[in-house]
């Protein structure tokens, strides 16, 4: 039982998950689940009670049972008491103050649980989420180095409604001409089949080889599909999977810890990286657990942070919160999407993940391009590892709006951010640095090399 008296009224919260849910800034998904605060005052009372909570509590009271949930077991079993020691006597409120005061939160990483970072995020304003995340340096590498200070990478997302190879190649070339693609060239396949995924893998691999691009490719099929493509000898750089913050959510995605471990082992043995071997790519998003009826009465932001515990067990190259994709029943409008995007980035970075955000919305959400500009700019200030690059911000396969190649150019130019160093050198060799982009495609990037003739 947790309680706080505010303005003469005593507010009580029967358990930790209820306290966390009531303390969460308003969002439609928690309201749909029936766990959100019932008034603005109750929310702040919960935040005050949460601020007084010792961090130790998160090691003794779990929000999802240890016995029945393998994500909880992962969180508890991997906790590092030595890294936790400097903050072991702090409350959540004191931890927020500490994070704002210190220069480098990285040494704490393995001592932090997702619930601790989710809790502290709930008593942070946006500027706190930005300032603290900006101090978290996370670097990963495969064929280029992602996450160095002063850099922001872009996933080139050349989706096509029928996986037409010419269509994918044209969007890929368009993105390269606008400086995108250093995080990954990653296609969401329209059809999740071994045959279709294999042909896309070969096609992307050939483009990267012929243009000699220091980057990696990925077809975002289900992990079981990718593993079957591997058996067929397809060229696989990154192993992708959507993951969630409870065992039941992951089961709804058709994945288990064993499957993730199998893929991680396979990726390491392939040894396809040149400057590093981080070979996993995960996507997450608030609301997936509620959508799968697998949330255990826990608020969607805390569950989302728990997904990062799964991610960090497999040393990923990239982790991406697809924040506005799921729809208005989970994040209703631009305000909720903006807050959630910054929370996810903050929690992922504190836990040591190479965190990107798909700054995006659907047409039935109360959001527009202005909201996306706001979130993108704030994420740039927060040091986001990577964002998406979609031609004209319009994903014609998934039918949602993400950030465009132009949007990433805007952030890089306005905030003085550069691509990954190896990719920056490549852009220079191709004559694409400095912002001058000719109408005529440079000879070194001849479309024929991408299969367009």
């Amino acid at each position, binding site marked *: 039982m947790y309680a706080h008296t505010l303005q003469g009224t005593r507010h009580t919260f029967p358990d930790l998950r209820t306290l966390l849910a009531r303390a969460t800034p308003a969002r439609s998904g928690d309201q749909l689940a029936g766990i959100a605060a019932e008034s603005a005052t109750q929310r702040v009372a919960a935040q005050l009670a949460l601020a007084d909570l010792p961090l130790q509590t998160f090691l003794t009271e779990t929000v999802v049972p240890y016995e029945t949930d393998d994500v909880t077991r992962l969180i508890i079993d991997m906790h590092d008491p030595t890294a936790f020691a400097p903050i072991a006597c702090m409350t959540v409120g004191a931890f927020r103050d500490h994070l704002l005061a210190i220069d480098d939160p990285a040494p704490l990483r393995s001592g932090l649980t997702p619930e601790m970072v989710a809790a502290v995020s709930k008593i942070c304003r946006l500027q706190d989420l930005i300032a603290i995340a900006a101090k978290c340096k996370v670097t990963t590498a495969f064929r280029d180095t992602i996450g160095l200070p002063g850099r922001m990478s872009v996933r080139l997302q050349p989706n096509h409604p029928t996986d037409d190879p010419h269509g994918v190649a*044209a*969007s890929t070339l368009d993105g390269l001409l606008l400086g995108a693609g250093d995080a990954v060239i990653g296609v969401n396949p329209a059809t*999740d089949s071994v045959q279709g995924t294999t042909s896309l893998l070969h096609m992307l691999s050939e483009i990267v080889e012929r243009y000699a691009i220091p980057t990696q490719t990925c077809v975002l099929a289900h992990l079981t599909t990718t593993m079957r493509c591997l058996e067929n000898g397809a060229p696989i750089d990154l192993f992708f999977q959507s993951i969630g913050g409870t065992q039941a959510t992951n089961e709804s995605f058709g994945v288990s810890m064993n499957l993730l471990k199998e893929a991680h082992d396979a990726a390491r043995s392939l040894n396809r990286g040149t400057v590093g071997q981080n070979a996993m790519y995960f996507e997450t998003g608030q609301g997936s657990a509620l959508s799968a009826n697998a949330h255990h009465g826990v608020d969607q932001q805390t569950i989302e942070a728990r997904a990062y515990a799964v991610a960090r067990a497999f040393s990923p190259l990239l982790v991406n919160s697809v924040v506005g*994709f799921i729809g208005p029943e989970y994040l209703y409008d631009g305000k909720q999407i903006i807050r959630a995007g910054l929370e996810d980035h903050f929690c992922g970075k504190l836990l040591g993940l190479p965190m990107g955000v798909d700054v995006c919305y659907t047409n039935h959400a109360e959001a527009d*391009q202005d909201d996306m500009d706001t979130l993108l700019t704030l994420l740039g200030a927060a040091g986001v590892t990577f964002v998406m690059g979609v*031609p004209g*911000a*319009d994903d014609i396969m998934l039918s949602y709006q993400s950030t465009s190649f132009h949007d990433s150019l805007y952030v890089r130019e306005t905030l003085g951010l550069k691509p990954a160093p190896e990719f920056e050198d490549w852009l220079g060799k191709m004559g694409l640095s400095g*912002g001058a982009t000719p109408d005529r495609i440079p000879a070194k990037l001849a479309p024929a090399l991408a299969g367009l003739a």
Partner: protein
Amino acid sequence: MTAPTLWRDLRQYTPARVALGRVGAGLPTAAHLAFQADHAAARDAVHAALDIAQLQTALSETKLTATAVRSACPDRPTYLRRPDLGRRLREEDRETLQPAPCKIAFVVCDGLSALAVQRHAAGLLALIVPALEPDGPIVIATQARVALGDDVGEALHASAVIVLIGERPGLSTPDSLGAYLTWAPHVGRTDADRNCLSNIRPEGMPVAEAARKLIWLATEMRARKLSGVGLKDEAPMLAATANSTSLGAP
């Protein structure tokens, strides 16, 4: 065909917004405002109210009649926030649906695009109703999601229900209609129990082609007394909804 050398030539390969040009880091005015116009059309489609009288008039031209019901959502903001209410009939409307066991009932839902329903539903029904010789009613449902058809089907004691529904608008596709077939409809059915045709619109799957597929699928469903993944296995060219991309809706 010779290899393209100009950036704008990339447009021939994809409907994606490639080769938009560039002013500084930004989009040229024309491309920026073209995007805004498309988003506005999609937004208007999401928030447009279904003109029930107009739809009934269109149906009457092929001698079809329909009754109108509503979901438990009083308005569009509630509809967008509460998918659970959009799947349930308003109580007073449930009482108007008298149990009358039938083979197939049709439910036309506004979904996320009344525009799609207004443009394509009557034409599609005009092709499929005579072919299927259904003995159940046509019900028009507003503020409705796909699973509202289960509630209607259960109230009517229908053997099967076919739901036509406005799909979530994409940036260039504000008027896309979906069709869902469910055998033995009852509250609690999931998407895995249904078969789905998507993207019904002139530039996607034209109404005539959708009608042909729907008639085939409905005939198979009745013969085999099942829908969903089991039926999909027999007809690989027709996707079960479990395999389609789902974005929160329907």
